[in-house]
């Protein structure tokens, strides 16, 4: 019997099972990236004002579906867990920091797309904002990957940070879609679907097994 009980690992396993096992968060993230990639295109179609409404309406739908699917699939297959107050506080702080980083990144990206420029050091050259945003994205996902031991988040971080580096060749600049972001979103959705399929196989509904 191994008496070296790693409680941090046990807590991490519980959290991963409760939150990331079903792939639904990944699908949601991928869909959001696809939505972002279509932003320039929908702005052309709907105009600036309606585009913002459309964007938030779709984003709200994605989040609503995420919550709905999790609540339908989770309790019968994963079960229900209540984390202690300390753990909940840590999660809230992590969500708050991540949200602030995402909002500030999205804000600077938006300002950049509207023509505002930030003084960047000489060495940043043409890429300026894109490098900053890429590094922030890489930082967020790498931190999550490290903290939760979710290797795929390193991959997501690289994928999304490269997407922001504007790797589209000059000849394709006329296309009103952020192609690298769209591809990144599709890849993440595909990974999420794979995880969901595996989850449904690995965790069948437990309804018939509960004893009365």
């Amino acid at each position, binding site marked *: *019997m191994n*008496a*070296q*009980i790693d*409680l941090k690992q*046990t*807590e991490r*396993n*519980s959290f991963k*099972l*409760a939150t990331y096992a079903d792939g639904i968060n990944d699908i949601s993230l991928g869909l959001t990236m696809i939505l972002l990639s279509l932003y320039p295109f929908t702005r052309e179609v709907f105009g600036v004002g309606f585009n913002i409404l459309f964007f938030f309406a779709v984003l709200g739908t994605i989040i609503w579906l995420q919550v709905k699917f999790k609540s339908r699939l989770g*309790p*019968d*297959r*994963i*079960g*229900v*867990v*209540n*984390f*202690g*107050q300390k*753990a909940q506080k840590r999660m809230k702080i992590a969500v708050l920091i991540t949200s602030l980083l995402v909002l500030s990144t999205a804000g600077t990206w938006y300002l950049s797309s509207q023509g505002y420029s930030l003084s960047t050091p000489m060495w940043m050259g043409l890429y300026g904002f894109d490098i900053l945003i890429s590094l922030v994205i890489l930082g967020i996902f790498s931190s999550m990957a490290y903290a939760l031991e979710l290797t795929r988040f390193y991959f997501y971080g690289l994928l999304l940070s490269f997407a922001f580096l504007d790797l589209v060749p000059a000849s394709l600049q006329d296309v009103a879609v952020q192609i690298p972001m769209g591809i990144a979103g599709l890849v993440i959705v595909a990974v999420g679907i794979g995880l969901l399929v595996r989850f449904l196989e690995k*965790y069948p509904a*437990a*309804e018939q*097994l*509960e*004893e*009365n």
Partner: protein
Amino acid sequence: MAEDKEINNPTAEINQLIHAPSRLNIITNLYVVESADFIFLRNLTGLTWGNLSAHTAKLAEAGYVEIEKSIVNKKTHTVARLTDAGRAAFEEYKEKMKEVLK
């Protein structure tokens, strides 16, 4: 005799109720959360329903675990949580094991 016992069996003072692998598995997973239902515990511990039920019942008899049953959507929903006595016993068990393995 007691001295001989200590030399020959360093785990004599270990809480044997917790020390059993399945129960240690259950109590460790309950220690890091506020509460968990049987489905979640079964997924984490890998125990069968029967084993999980039997071992949590033993822990409940000792006052280490509290079990709550309710009906949710016409299905029995069983939730387990460690009691204060259970947490204290587990912490004591950890300390004793550290001494044993020093």
